[in-house]
C-alpha cells in the first residue's frame, strides 16, 4: 500500500492539504466593500448623505459616480461594479413634501453574497435615515418620546451559532467530514484495485498463509485504515478548525465519541465499495463526482427540511450525511451528544451493517479465489496425468 502513489495521495496528501486549501479559500468568511456605482440625479444634501452612509458601511464601497443609467450599466457589464444606486431628481423634494421618497437599487444577481451586501446596506441606510426624518417630522416634545413614536416596538436581531454569518464557518465543517469519508473510500478502493491487478489471477484476496479466515482479513485491513485515520480524523475535526478559528464548541471527548462510529462506518463502507470495482480507476470515476451531491445532502447548503423525500432516502446510504449533521451540531452549535443521539445511533448502525456487508463480500471473494485455485489445480492435474499417461 505504501508503495502505491495513488493510495498515498488519497490517504495522506488529500486529507492533509485539502482542508488547508478550503480553509484558505473561505477564510475571509464574508465579502466586504462590494463596488457600487451611484447615479445621483437629485444632487441634494439628502442624497449625498445617503451615499456617504452607504460608503461608510463595511459591505459596500461607492466606486464610481456615473452621469446616467446607461453609463452605470456599462460599468456593470464590464464587471467593474456589482450594482447601481439611483436617486431620482425628486428624491429630496418628495421628502420635504411629506411624500414617500424612492431610491432604486439595481443588482447584478449573479453573485448572491454581493446582492445581499448591496441590497441590505441600502435598506439599512434607508431605515436609519428614515428614523431621523420621522423624528424631525413628528414634532414631539422630548427625545424619548421621539424615539418611541418612531419605533413603538423595538426589536433585537440575534444570529446565534456562527454569528458573523461567515461562509467558511458554515460550509467547512461539512466539507471536512466529507473529505474524511471520500478519501477513505477512494484510498481503500484504489488499494483494492491495485491488489487485484497485481494478483496474477485478478483476485482481490490472494491464497496464502497470511490471508486466512474472513474475519481476520476484514478486521486486519480495517485496523490498518483505522490507525491512519485516527490521526487524519483528529487533524480534520480538531486541528483544522482550531488553526483557522472556525467555531469549535465540542470537547475532544465528545468528538472522539462521535468519530469512532463515523470512521468505522466509513472504513467498512469503503471496503464494501472496493469489492465492487474491477479496475482501480473506476472507483475514482464513481466516487469523486458523488462528493458534491453528498455535500448538498448533508443539509448545509440547501436546508434539510426542503430536500425532497426521494433524495433524503438516497442520502441514508452514506455515513457522511449523518456524520456531518452530528458534527456540525456538536461543534458549531454546541449541542450535547444527547441532542444528536438519533444521528449517532444511525452511525453505529451503519458501522455494523457495513461491517456485516464487508464480511459477506469478502467471504464471497475468498470463495471465488479458492474456487479459482481449485479449478486451476484440477486443470494442472489433468495435464500432468495426460503427459505421464
Amino acid at each position, binding site marked *: 500500500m505504501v508503495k502505491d*502513489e495513488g493510495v498515498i495521495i488519497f490517504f495522506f496528501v488529500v486529507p492533509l492539504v485539502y482542508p488547508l486549501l478550503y480553509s484558505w*479559500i473561505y477564510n475571509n468568511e464574508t465579502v466586504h466593500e462590494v463596488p457600487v456605482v451611484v447615479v445621483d440625479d437629485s444632487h441634494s444634501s439628502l442624497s449625498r448623505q*445617503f451615499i456617504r452612509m452607504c460608503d461608510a458601511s463595511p459591505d459596500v464601497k461607492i466606486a464610481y459616480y456615473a452621469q446616467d443609467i446607461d453609463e452605470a450599466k456599462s460599468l456593470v457589464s464590464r464587471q467593474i461594479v456589482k450594482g447601481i444606486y439611483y436617486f431620482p431628481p425628486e428624491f429630496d423634494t418628495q421628502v420635504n413634501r411629506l411624500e414617500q421618497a424612492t431610491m432604486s437599487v439595481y443588482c447584478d444577481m*449573479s453573485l448572491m453574497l454581493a446582492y445581499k451586501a448591496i441590497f441590505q446596506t441600502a435598506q439599512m441606510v434607508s431605515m436609519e435615515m428614515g428614523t431621523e426624518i420621522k423624528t424631525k417630522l413628528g414634532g414631539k416634545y422630548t427625545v424619548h418620546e421621539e424615539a418611541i413614536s418612531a419605533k413603538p416596538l423595538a426589536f433585537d436581531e440575534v444570529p446565534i451559532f456562527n454569528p458573523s454569518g461567515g461562509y467558511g464557518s458554515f460550509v467547512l465543517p461539512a466539507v471536512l467530514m466529507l473529505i474524511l469519508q471520500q478519501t477513505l473510500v477512494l484510498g481503500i478502493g484504489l488499494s483494492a484495485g491495485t491488489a487485484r491487478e497485481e494478483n496474477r489471477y485478478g483476485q482481490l484476496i490472494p491464497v496464502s498463509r497470511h490471508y486466512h479466515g474472513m474475519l481476520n482479513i476484514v478486521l486486519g485491513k480495517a485496523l490498518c485504515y483505522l490507525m491512519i485515520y485516527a490521526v487524519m480524523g483528529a487533524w480534520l475535526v480538531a486541528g483544522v478548525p482550531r488553526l483557522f478559528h472556525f467555531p469549535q464548541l465540542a470537547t475532544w471527548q465528545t468528538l472522539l465519541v462521535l468519530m469512532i462510529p463515523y470512521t468505522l462506518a466509513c472504513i467498512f463502507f469503503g471496503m464494501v465499495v472496493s469489492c465492487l470495482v474491477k479496475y482501480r480507476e473506476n472507483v475514482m470515476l464513481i466516487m469523486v463526482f458523488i462528493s458534491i451531491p453528498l455535500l448538498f445532502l448533508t443539509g448545509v*447548503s440547501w436546508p434539510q427540511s426542503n430536500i425532497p423525500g426521494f433524495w433524503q432516502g438516497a442520502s441514508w446510504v452514506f455515513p457522511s450525511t449523518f456524520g456531518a449533521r452530528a458534527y456540525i451540531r456538536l461543534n458549531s452549535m454546541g449541542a450535547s451528544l444527547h441532542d444528536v443521539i438519533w444521528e449517532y445511533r444511525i452511525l453505529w448502525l451503519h458501522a455494523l451493517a457495513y461491517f456485516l456487508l464487508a464480511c459477506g463480500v469478502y467471504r464471497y471473494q475468498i470463495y471465488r479465489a479458492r474456487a479459482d485455485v481449485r479449478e486451476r489445480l484440477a486443470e494442472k492435474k489433468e495435464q500432468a496425468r495426460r503427459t505421464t499417461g
Partner: protein
Amino acid sequence: MSEENKEKQAIGKGVLSILWRIMMRELLILRRNHIYRFSMVVFPILVMIFFTSLMDDGLPTSLPVAVVDQDNTSTTRVLTRRLDAFQMSRVVAHYPTMTEARKAIQRNEIYGFLYIPKGTTEKLLASRQPKISFYYTYTSLTAGAMVMKDLKTISTLGSAALGQATLQARGFTDEQIQTLLQPIRVDLHQIANPWSSYNSYLTTMIVPGIFMLFIFLITAYSLGTELKFNTSKEWVQMANNRMVVAIIGKFLPQTFIWLALVYGYEWYVFFHLGFPHLGSPWMLILLGLMQVLASQGFGIFAFGLMPSLRMSMSVCSLWAVLSISMAGSAFPIMGMDAPLQSLSWLFPLRHYYMIYQISVFNGFPLIEAWFHFAALCAFLLLPWFVVSKLKNAMLNYVYIP
C-alpha cells in the same frame, strides 16, 4: 495538376481516411467498456436531475421556526399568526422558555425563533417601547438568511401596524402615514433573476462543473487505458505516427458525445425549465462548445504532463473538485485572498462561469468577457505543449499497475 499537388491531395485523402478509421476504432472502445457509458451518459444525467429536482422550489419555503411567547396576549398572537402566513417560514412549535427553543435549534428542529417577553403588550399600550427579539442560526446560511428575512419583516411590521393606528387616530391621511412610517423606500430591481432562485444560481455552475470533471477524467482515462491495455502502439501506428491526427481521431467521437450532453443540459435547464438567461441561444452554443473543448484540452495536457493513469486521474479529479469552489459562484472571488484571485485563472470552470454570467445570464456582449474566452482558448491549445511527450509515452512506456 503538378506532381506535388497530387501528392498533397493524396496525403489529404489519406489523413481523412485515417481519421475515419481511428474514429471508428474509438467508437468501438466506447461501446465495449461500460465505464464510458456510465461516465459519459448515466452519471452526468443523474447529476443534472439531482440538482434541478433538489432545488425545484427555487427558494427554500416553509422553513420551521418557533415562537417563545411569554406575553400571550391577542396582540402577540396576531404577530405569531402573521409570521405563520409568510411563505418562507412555518411556525411549528411554541416553547415556554428560550432555553428550550435554543435546544430545539440544536436538535435541528427549527432554524430560528421569535422571542416576546412578558409585559410586551402592557408596555406597548403605555408607550414605553418594549423590545422583542428574534434568534436564528447561521450554520445553514441559506436557511438562516431566509428565516432572518421573515423574522425581521414581522418585527418591523408589528412596529408599523401600531404606529399606523396611532397616526390614524390623529387624522393623518394614508399617504402621510406611509411617509411617516417609511420616509425612504428602497425600490429593488433584481436584474436577470427577479425570483432570486437558488436553483439558477447553483445548478448553472455545479452541473457544468461536474460535467467538466467527467470530461477531465474520461479524457485522461481513455489515454491511460491505451497504455494499460497495451493498445497504444497500434493506435499511434494507425495514424502513421502522426500524433496530432491520432489525438484528433481519438477525441472527436468523444467531443460529439460531450457536446450532445452539454447541449441537452442547456436545453433542459434554459428552455424546458426556463432558467433566466438574457443572452442569445448562439451564446449558449458557443459556450457549450468552448466548455467541452477546453476541458478536453486540459485532460490531455494533464495526462501529457504525467503519463500515468493514476497520477493524471488523481490530479484531474482534485483539480475539478477544487474548481467548484474556485469558480467563485457561491463565495465570490473578490472576497478571497489576492493570491487565490490570480490562481482562479488556472481553473477552466472559472472562465466558463464568468462567460456564462456575463454573456448568458446578464446578456452582455461577448467582448466584455473576452479575457475569459481567450483563457478557454488557451486551455484548448494546451495539448500542443505535450504532443511530443505524449507520443514518446505511447510508443515507449510500459504500464506498471
